């Protein structure tokens, strides 16, 4: 009986967990923050976001956000100095008024940049919130949806360190 109870509790847990996926989450959870490079086919040579991102010989992190998340991410990046030392950083906003920032912020209303960096579409089909990591050869090695990325820059740094 106790094992059956455990099975029932875990079953309910899985269902509740699935029901609580947010509109910004990846429809396929396996691709959301998988934690390792080259999890899926990614673009070899993505376009420039800014003149220096990406740059040959340097790693780069390109964040993709919607206007509602942009200011929070920019503030988090300002507070976190570690990531800036590991890679060049840029933020791509899907629209609205660009926040004042020390890191370059560019506009991508059409979603072309996000697609070019291999970002997947979230459950609501809108602009993805997450980031892509480019290695020093200019190849995208990691692209993931992460609606809470502003609170998880340490995790981004871990991925960047693993990127050549």
């Amino acid at each position: 009986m106790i094992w059956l109870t455990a099975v029932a509790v875990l079953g309910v847990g899985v269902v509740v967990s699935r029901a609580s996926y947010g509109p910004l989450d990846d429809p396929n959870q396996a691709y959301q923050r998988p934690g390792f490079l080259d999890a899926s086919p990614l673009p070899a040579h993505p376009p420039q976001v800014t003149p220096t991102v990406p740059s040959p010989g340097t790693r780069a992190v390109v964040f993709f956000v919607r206007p509602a998340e942009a200011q929070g991410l920019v503030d988090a990046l300002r507070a976190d100095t570690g990531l800036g030392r590991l890679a060049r950083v840029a933020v791509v906003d899907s629209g609205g008024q660009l926040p004042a920032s020390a890191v370059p912020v560019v506009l991508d209303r059409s979603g072309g940049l996000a697609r070019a960096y291999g970002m997947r579409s979230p459950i609501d089909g809108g602009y993805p919130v997450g980031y892509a990591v480019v290695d020093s050869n200019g190849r995208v090695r990691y692209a993931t949806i992460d609606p809470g990325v502003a609170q998880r820059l340490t995790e981004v740094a871990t991925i960047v360190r693993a990127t050549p």
Partner: protein
Amino acid sequence: MSVEHRASQLHRARVWPWLVAVTIEAGLFTLYQLEGARYHWFVHFFVGASVALAVMTAWSWRTRRPVAHPLAWVVAAHIYAMFPDLLFDGVGIAHHRWMNVFLGHLWVHFIPGQDLTWYGVFVVALSAYLLWLDHLRSVQTYPPTLKVEQWGQGPPVVFLHGLGASSRYWGTLARTSGGYRGIAPDLLGFGRSPKPPWASYDATCHIESLDPLVPQGAVVVGHSTGAILAAALAESFPGRVRALVLIGLPGFADADEARQAVSRLGLLARLTVKASPLGWAACHLAHVLGPLVVPLAPLVVPELPSEVASDYLRHTWLSYSRTLKEVVIAQRAVDEMVLAARCPVVFVHGSADRAAPLAGVRAIVAKLQEIGAPVRLVVSEGGDHQLALRRPDVVAAALSDLLASPGASVEKASEASSGRAPR
């Protein structure tokens, strides 16, 4: 043993492991939840648990007995499966493809259906395990066969050791005495005998397992807990047991007195009596470290022969704690058992026995003699609880007298004293 009784024992056995396992898993789940990654917790839990269940099923199929700590297997396999996540969050090491050695840590996410599929695999693995256990219990003979040492020729004498000991406890006495066929089992749950986790380890359970080993007309010699079981055995099979020798019998007036006396024996005994989780943890730690701890036992208990000291670690928490509680503390009145047995009884006791004070046995003997029961008390002056080890001559003499003529032996003196035991 009734089904209800077995079920209640089973229930007690399950509570602590479940509490510990659920606490650990809740902690791990919280870690993932804080990282917004509960999906990963579910996947790795189902994968780890499924592998653990498959291994447990295969292991119990091979050994024909259930795995001792199933929840520990499940939790350990889960931690192994999720280990790269601990490296990621704890040390900042990203995942690499070789980390698939941790039960396919990376690729398990990419199968169709993902966590739902793994949930299905988990349910199948658990069903297979439970069905196999059910089958195993239905075909397994009960009671399990005990490990038995036998020596000598002559009338049968069955030796029942005390709590935590084994048949090897009787080695010194066997070398000192003779003229009989010695039959010394390791009690259920002790020494090299089976230690089934579903056994109740009460007197009824022990007697069921001893039943096939007691020939008609046997003299039964019991030490301490074994003495209680010897009396219970004679009561259960009146006529089959010819006489009893009860060495160091723990004769307590009631369960409270028994609990107090046992508590005085040391920290571990006190923890066991109080059913403390610390006692449980210490016992399990000793089992985990078994190969290291067993050789050290003679250093910890230098006053005992090394093989006897080593055997004090060859039991499980269940067998030890339940036997202590169900046989020693919750013992039935020994005088009633002896009366029902209707056989001569010699009590052999040390005057300096701390574990089972002499006064308790004196009271039992006096009560029995008052109503004319054929009993006799032999007191070894200065002797402690381990008379069969330290004064085997005293025990051998009592046994020899009984074998020669059981009735005459108990009638020749109501209380005899032997000399001071050498220390």
